[in-house]
């Protein structure tokens, strides 16, 4: 039997594994619902062991609750398990502070400089509304850029002893090891907001050129030491992008080619030169119109392939063969409905993609809060049977 890491690595490289891996992303809102519905919280509790110092004279091991982690409980293979511990955010951080609080809302400046409003009620089930963004124009970009200095020593952990990290990344087996990178579209949209950022491609292309050029420099130089140290002990790059909606990509293939492609190639070439060639784009929505370009840019995998946006992993596999490993694409709506609808959806994807390889099934984005524990258990039981290869 393969370890989870061996299984994931074999699959994303289109080699035969002992069975298909299975990946799910379960958000806190769904977990809280499931705990209410009877999921045993103690079985998914993540404990960190620390040393407790009492009165300065005793030193006792102390268990500290850190998170809920349902992966093992359900038998999910964690493709984002051991992360390269880099800080790619603005440094120094903006000072977080609440600027408005009412009975219904809380509005704050976040550490990234964005002003976000949240609903207090059911905040777990909601995402913030962004009231303003730190970059609005060339002047504010030049001010922000100072915080994106790759040479800032805080980007690496204090305990960055290369040999220790090499050993950890070499021996880890509980899932795959991963480096998180924010693609330029995601980067710009986070700094300016989607409407302003998209508009700037036309209104101020020189600003976009300057931003993408700095993004490339910042990304390569920040990750350089980790990448050159760990090399292919990094199994996967998670390339967060979120550049599409149901209608299609937010930016046209023409703009992608003109502004993004050259820098993307240089970043992925740097990774590939260091034997890291599994680069998975995370984008919701329908990305079909830019997939040719994403592949040309060096992307080699894609998640989550949302069905209600028109994404179909079988069509992508047919069109692109082994150029993309695929993760997700099980229609969340079918899982919520359960029963025959769910089974048909799971079977229709896995039966085809198991044969072609390079596929990790999972719900096409996060497991939604309206998916009950009972439905998820039913789905988990069924999907796990489908992961096995005929002997």
């Amino acid at each position, binding site marked *: 039997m393969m370890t989870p890491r061996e299984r994931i690595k074999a699959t994303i490289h289109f080699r035969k594994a002992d069975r298909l891996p299975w990946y799910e992303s379960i958000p806190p809102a769904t977990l809280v619902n499931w705990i209410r519905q009877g999921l045993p919280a103690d079985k998914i509790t993540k404990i960190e062991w620390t040393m407790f110092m009492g009165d300065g004279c005793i030193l006792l091991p102390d268990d500290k609750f850190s998170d809920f982690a349902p992966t093992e409980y359900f038998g999910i293979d964690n493709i984002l398990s051991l992360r390269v511990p880099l800080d790619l955010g603005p440094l120094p951080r903006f000072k977080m502070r609440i600027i408005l609080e009412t009975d219904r809302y809380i509005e704050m400046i976040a550490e990234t400089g964005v002003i976000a409003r949240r609903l207090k009620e059911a905040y777990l089930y909601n995402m913030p509304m962004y009231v303003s963004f730190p970059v609005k124009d060339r002047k504010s970009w030049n001010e922000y850029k100072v915080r994106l200095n790759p040479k800032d020593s805080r980007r690496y952990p204090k305990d960055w002893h290369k040999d220790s990290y090499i050993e950890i990344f070499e021996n880890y087996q509980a899932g795959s090891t991963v480096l998180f990178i924010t693609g330029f579209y995601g980067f710009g949209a986070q700094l300016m907001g989607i409407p302003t950022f998209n*508009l700037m491609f036309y209104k101020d292309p020189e600003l976009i050129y300057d931003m993408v050029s700095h993004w490339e420099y910042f990304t390569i130089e920040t990750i350089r030491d980790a990448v050159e140290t760990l090399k292919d002990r990094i199994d996967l790059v998670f390339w967060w992008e979120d550049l599409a909606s149901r*209608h299609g990509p937010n930016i046209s293939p023409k703009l992608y080619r003109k502004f993004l492609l050259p820098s993307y190639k240089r970043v992925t070439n740097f990774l590939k030169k260091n034997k890291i060639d599994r680069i998975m784009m995370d984008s919701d929505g329908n990305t079909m119109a830019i997939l040719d370009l994403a592949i040309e840019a060096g992307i080699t995998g894609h998640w989550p392939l949302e069905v209600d946006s028109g994404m179909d992993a079988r069509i992508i596999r047919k069109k692109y063969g082994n150029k993309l490993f695929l993760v997700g694409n099980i229609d969340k709506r079918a899982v919520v409905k359960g029963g025959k609808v769910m089974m048909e959806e799971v079977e229709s994807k896995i039966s085809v993609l198991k044969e072609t390889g390079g596929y990790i099934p999972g719900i096409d984005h996060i497991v*939604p809060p309206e998916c009950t524990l009972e439905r998820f258990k039913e789905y988990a039981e069924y999907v796990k049977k489908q992961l096995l290869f005929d002997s």
Partner: protein
Amino acid sequence: MDSENDIFQMIATTLRDLENSNKMKQLINNAILRGVSAVEIIEKGLRRGLELIGQKYEAGEYFLSELLYAGSIMNDAIEILRPYLEHEKIIKKGIIVLGTVRGDIHDIGKNIFKMFAEAAGFEVHDLGVDVDPNAFVKALKETGAKILAMSALLTTTILEMKTVIEHLKQAGIRSNVKVLLGGNAVTKEFAKEIGADAAALDAVEGIEICKKWVEEK
């Protein structure tokens, strides 16, 4: 010399081809100098251009960036025309009450829809985000709007749309109002299921639906 129709055509294609604002500014100024009505420039030139943009978007030739840039060129053009509009009356296509439902505070899609609805000639009453069902009812009564456009991004908040429709029924105005749903969580099946009149998968489709409803009357 170009006929008025040629001028409208040039304005429409300049907008369609996303040519820079300077060219549009020049075309509009020339048209005004020739005595062309500002209202006609908007209705026959700019709005036609916007329709062509919508067609390119639906055909997959244009994407969000192009929509937003077209909206920006259009706004700049209307600013040039604004002083002349004081003496002319634009006939509004209709009135839309717009908002994101209670419990949901997302507004990007809603704002893009608003920009295009206004550019297409609708009067839009934007109630913002996290809108109480009673506020929708109140605004519909006060404005006499015949279209309610509601948005929801999240699967956890779309059921609120059903609550709003219930409120319209209780207020006795459901049969006077067409209900359009939008937002990432919405599907056409869902719209049917909760008794809405239509669902739009994007802003451009939403405007086309609203225009069709107005023309049907």
